[in-house]
């Protein structure tokens, strides 16, 4: 035990001597949480659109006014031909074009029917659909208002309640996701070079000559990083709750416990990478390039997992952030308890054990 503590102290010295790295490690997550927490959202607002008004009458003017007043759209162009619309799309100036036909008002008055054409830049299919849905609803509202007091018979009304997130804030989804991503990457990156560095600088022999068991040696390397990661978790949680207005509807102890478990998983993942690589560069490449995009895409906060093809759904299970994201979302936002998330907790725990076992195995081989 004493020897273990001495080793831990040595590792602490190593890390704390490098002030610049420490500053970077503590400042990065704070800056990232703030930038992403405020900037990322998948709601649509102020999207630049074009309107081709072929009618130029009272009704079309009213409709345009309505569209401009909605927070979704900003009219930046009034083209006269389809060619001009095509040009604006190609130069990436607009995302949607609305075409109002000639005699719009007359048709509405005399035939009681008029048509409007929406052209969307479907390069981004998601934005295109969303814009079409929103433009459609603004037009429907306009029509309902224009019809005034006339109420159709046999009407079904819909009462819609948005659970958990009545204001539809993007932060409720993105903050837990970004939190998981930052914690995983920073923690894994820190430990990923810890052992391979010793190999590269040839200090490994000295370590191996020590009387400590390999497992203890590995753990002593992880302890200081654990402390650093815990500080990071605390700042991230404080920022989420105070500045980004994320609720903690469930138990705060459960949240903290899960964060602690997740850091352990991430640190073990880093240790494993460190044990299976031969150079710092390879280790960094794997831990940064190899983890960043798969974590981002497969953890479920950017793209719904149920939309993925089945093999991808299966693959997403090996991404630790996926499980962390589910737990945090359930506990913090939905306010659920341990009973609802124990399965996910068990999976994270299993992953940790797996990573540590591999690290230990690989490490032992080098001893012989």
């Amino acid at each position, binding site marked *: 035990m004493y020897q273990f503590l001495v080793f831990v102290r040595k590792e602490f010295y190593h890390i704390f001597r490098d002030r610049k790295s420490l500053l970077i490690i503590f400042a990065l997550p704070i800056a990232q949480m703030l930038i992403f927490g405020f900037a990322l959202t998948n709601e649509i607002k102020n999207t630049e659109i074009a309107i081709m008004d072929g009618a130029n009458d009272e009704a079309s003017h009213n409709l345009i006014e309505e569209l401009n007043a909605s927070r979704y759209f900003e009219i930046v162009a009034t083209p006269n031909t389809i060619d001009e619309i095509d040009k604006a799309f190609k130069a990436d100036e607009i995302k949607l074009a609305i075409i109002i036909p000639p005699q719009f008002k007359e048709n509405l008055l005399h035939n009681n029917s008029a*048509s409007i054409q929406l052209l969307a830049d479907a390069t981004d299919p998601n934005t295109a659909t969303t814009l079409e849905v929103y433009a459609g609803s603004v037009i429907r509202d306009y029509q309902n208002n224009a019809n005034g007091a006339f109420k159709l018979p046999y009407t079904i009304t819909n009462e819609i*309640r948005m659970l958990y997130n009545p204001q539809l804030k993007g932060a409720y989804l993105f903050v837990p996701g970004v939190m998981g991503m930052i914690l995983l990457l920073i923690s894994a990156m820190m430990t990923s070079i810890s052992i391979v560095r010793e190999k590269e600088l040839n200090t490994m022999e000295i370590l191996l000559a020590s009387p400590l068991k390999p497992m203890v040696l590995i753990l002593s390397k992880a302890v200081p990083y654990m402390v650093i990661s815990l500080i990071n978790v605390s700042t991230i949680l404080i920022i989420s709750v105070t500045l980004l207005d994320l609720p903690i509807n469930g138990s705060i102890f459960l949240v903290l416990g899960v964060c602690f478990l997740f850091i352990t998983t991430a640190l073990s993942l880093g240790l494993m990478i460190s044990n299976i690589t031969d150079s710092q*560069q390879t280790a960094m490449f794997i831990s940064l390039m190899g983890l960043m995009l798969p974590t981002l895409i497969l953890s479920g906060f950017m793209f719904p997992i149920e939309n993925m093809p089945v093999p991808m759904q299966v693959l997403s299970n090996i991404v630790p952030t996926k499980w962390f994201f589910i737990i945090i979302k359930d506990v913090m936002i939905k306010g659920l308890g341990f009973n609802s998330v124990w399965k996910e907790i068990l999976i994270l725990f299993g992953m940790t054990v797996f990573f540590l076992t591999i690290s230990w195995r690989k490490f032992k081989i080098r001893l012989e």
Partner: protein
Amino acid sequence: MKMLLVILRKEFQQIRRNPAILRIIFMMPAVQLLVLPLAADYEVKNVNLCIVDQDHSSYSQLLLTKLAASEYFIIKDVADSYDEALGSIEKDEADIILTIPPHFEKDLIKENGSELSLAVNAVNGAKGNIGASYAVNIINEYNQEIREQLITMPKVNPVPVINVTYSNWYNPGMSYTLFMVPGILVILLTMVGSFLSALNIVHEKEVGTIEQINVSPIKKYQFILGKLIPFWIIGFIVLTIGLGIARFVYGIIPEGNIGLIYLFAAVYLLALLGIGLLISTIAESQQQAMFISFFFMMIFILMGGLYTSIDSMPYWAQVITWFNPVKYFIEVMRMIVMKDSSFSDISHSLLIIGIMAIVFNTWAVLKYRKRV
């Protein structure tokens, strides 16, 4: 010139001597490009419904049939009470609870109107909102049908109706791979380019070989060029592999001129390598270089317009994206691949990236000189 060639040979030898990293440089982007675009689809579909039908009438049955028949909804669960249904939302098994109240049919006919209630899981606000809109659209259609059954509609609509037609340009099949593959390729290229160059020079610092170079008669610009050119070439290879995968695996053939992509990439890689160089002159160790790269890479990726729309960001965040090279390349890539945009359409972005290339490289060289 001869000196430069000598340095280049040395750099290439150094890269060749480490086949593990070389394999990773080419394999990792290729594998990720093969796998990840398949998962990147956030179209709102397969909305799971949990139904609480307290009416059990022919009308409520008809509504359920209509919902189930639509391409968006799956009736996942039928619950007896709202509280029970809430459980399936908590377990993420359902996205929307539709409650059909008792006397739904009777009220509609006798009282001339009735009310349905929708409870939406809005943790993902945008998805909840769109899912609810789909449901409301279907309910409205259904409502219209019922009216037509109950009353003989006059030939001309009693009230003015605006018909909205939709057409989706450039991607009529609404394909997500067409949208994602070029974007993910840009990100992978960005990571390889900036990360490699950032690590490389700082590695020389860490193992002390940079002192040898500093005392040799090599000029600084020769040294920098010697570092840049190999990575520039590696970048081109990664891009070519990526475009090949896009072409042969995903069947994506650029509508526009592929030469424009290479032209843009040439300047873009210079800018990235400049960023990498700058990071490596600031960082003292490979670890620091890695963390700084990570920081910028996250911002470049998450604020590059691939995942969330830049238009919707607050103004200060949009200002940040002006300095994000990834944003410009993703835009240009999509413009060329999908919209057949011309040189004049991309010239503005090309100019900005060109300026970035000059600024970052100059900055890096100046910074590097000061340290020696």
